[in-house]
């Protein structure tokens, strides 16, 4: 299988404030968010990063999406390095995370057109894509309502659609179903399966076991910034439920680090 994303020895540390040092009961001025993380994702599959809150999932995805730079290591997306060729990486990925906000003042229609222009998409393709995506996610009825007046769920759907204006081959979704009701969540997960069927590669992060079991071909379990296991879903589960296996892995890791 063709590797579409390769992360090698990614490391990212953040500076801690004096107060934060006290809370974490540490004298070290930095916190390691991602610690020597390596993994690969293959073309046409859904790869899941599973881990508890604060494990380093979002940081990893932000590095891959070129929003932040790794302190050490590198990742390549479709052969382009996130540190040396961020421009090429940005052209190929669609990134969705809750920290990317849309301007309240504009309507979904305006924003779709605006971002399409930034990706230099011709108007015909743009209109086709917009009609398709808007009707799939039920945005068409709200297309001319300012983002400020949309519900939280609708805002998230608009963000998702905006992240796909350029029909990217690699889609990186950070907690894609967070904050969505079950119906909308199902629309999103169904759409991810549809994208996979189209041959797209999807990287997602989540802390929801059922989501991984339902969607992912392969999964990487991140604990404290380290990759604990990374394999196909079947191999990771090893005959147990994902939840049970996760707790086994978690206690192994924690037990190991306590020594």
């Amino acid at each position, binding site marked *: 299988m063709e590797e579409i994303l390769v992360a090698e020895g990614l490391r990212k540390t953040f500076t801690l404030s004096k107060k934060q040092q006290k809370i974490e009961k540490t004298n070290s001025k930095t916190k390691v968010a991602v610690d020597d993380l390596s993994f690969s994702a293959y073309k046409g599959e859904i790869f899941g990063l599973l881990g508890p809150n604060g494990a380093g999932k979002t940081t990893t995805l932000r590095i891959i*999406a*070129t*929003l*932040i*730079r790794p302190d050490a290591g590198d990742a390549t997306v479709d052969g382009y390095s996130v540190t040396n060729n961020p*421009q*090429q990486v*940005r*052209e190929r*990925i669609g*990134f969705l995370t809750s*920290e*990317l*906000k*849309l*301007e*309240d*003042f*504009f309507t979904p229609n*305006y924003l779709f057109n*605006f*971002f399409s*222009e*930034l*990706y*230099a998409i011709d108007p015909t393709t743009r209109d086709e894509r917009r009609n398709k995506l808007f009707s799939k996610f039920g945005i068409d009825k709200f297309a001319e309502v300012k983002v400020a007046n949309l519900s939280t769920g609708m805002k998230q759907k608009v963000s998702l659609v*905006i992240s796909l204006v350029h029909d990217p081959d690699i889609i990186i979704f950070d907690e894609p179903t967070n904050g969505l009701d079950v119906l909308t969540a199902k629309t999103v997960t169904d759409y991810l399966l549809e994208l996979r069927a189209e041959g797209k590669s999807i990287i997602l992060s989540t802390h929801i076991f059922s989501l991984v079991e339902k969607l992912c071909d392969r999964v990487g379990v991140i604990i404290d910034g380290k990759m604990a296991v990374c394999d196909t879903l079947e191999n990771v589960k090893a005959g147990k439920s994902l939840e049970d296996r996760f707790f086994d892995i978690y206690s192994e890791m924690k037990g190991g680090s306590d020594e």
Partner: protein
Amino acid sequence: MNNSILTIIKKEFARFFGDKRMVFTTIIMPGLLIYLIYSFMGDGLKDTFAPDEDYRAKVYVQNMPETVQPIFDSLDMDITNADDMNVDSLKTLIETKKIELLVVFPQQFDSSISSYNVLDTTQVAPNVLMYSNFTNVESENAESKVRYMLEEYEKSISNKFDINGYREENANETFDLATDEDAMGEIFSMMMPFLLLIFLYSGCVAVAPESIAGEKERGTIATLLVTPMNRNHLAFGKIISLSVIALLSGLSSFLGTMLSLPKLMGGAIDGLPTNIYTTSDYALLLGIILSTVLIMISLISVISAYAKTVKEAATMVLPLMIVIMVVGVTSMVGGNEAQTAMSWYLIPIYNSVQAMVGIFSFGYSITNVAITIVVNIIYAGIFSFVLAKMFNSEKIMFSK
């Protein structure tokens, strides 16, 4: 122009001009407010300092000399002989604004002035006492009228020569040879650079922090930063669109000032200076203004990009405001002549002030104006480059 720069400019314009409240508060209100306030102030000042034309001041006089009597009679005032009245009670009446003026002449005023010899140091000049109340406009007015008439009388009794006195043969002569143009130029070169600088700066502060720090605060800039758009294009697009909006805001304030100026100055300036400057003067002025806005916007944008919130940005640009004001005031000192040494025109903002002083006072060098414009554009370019670098820095863009 590059397509993504245009896209950003279009978006910024759509954001700004699509918001009627923003257009009103940033572009229409400043000019309107300045016009109304200045006009109101002008009218108010006139009312406060101009005494009532029809009012007859009540003036009390003790020991009225015969020679001075006709002078008082010629004044449009109610003159009362106060020889038998008490000075203190009259003073109280002035204090309480019941009457306007008390004039006390020495006894035998006429004979003492004729016997007084200016050259004899042993003699003391006869002394006239006048009591008035400065807080009463009518009293102050009466005092100055009487003082003026008495001083004229004093001059007339010891007159040896006149200066620019009225004579049949020079009835139409003007002795102050400054032209109206020069006078206007002097006033404008003092005021305009300062006012323009302040108004342009306020325009910049009204838009840049909101667009840069605001987008950062609301997390919408991150959405732009995951797109493949070049950071330099983003910086350019922002600076150009914000400059246009700031310019409109600054010009609104300027227009408000210019239109209310005749009222504010109470006739010292008559109408707009449309006829005293040439088209090329205005063209150069526009060039200076444009380059000044570019440098201000790019500088404020850099500061705003560094700030975490709009509020913080507003605080951080305050010191710059003080610098701009101080630099602006330099147009009012130094004899209203522009600096001639070229090196002065390498200092941003100061060069704009000096170039404007030069244009308004009809004494500019085209080289220095050109240097000003070029230098400002280069600085704006540097700041724009810095802004692009900041867009690329995760520490600056994503620090919380």
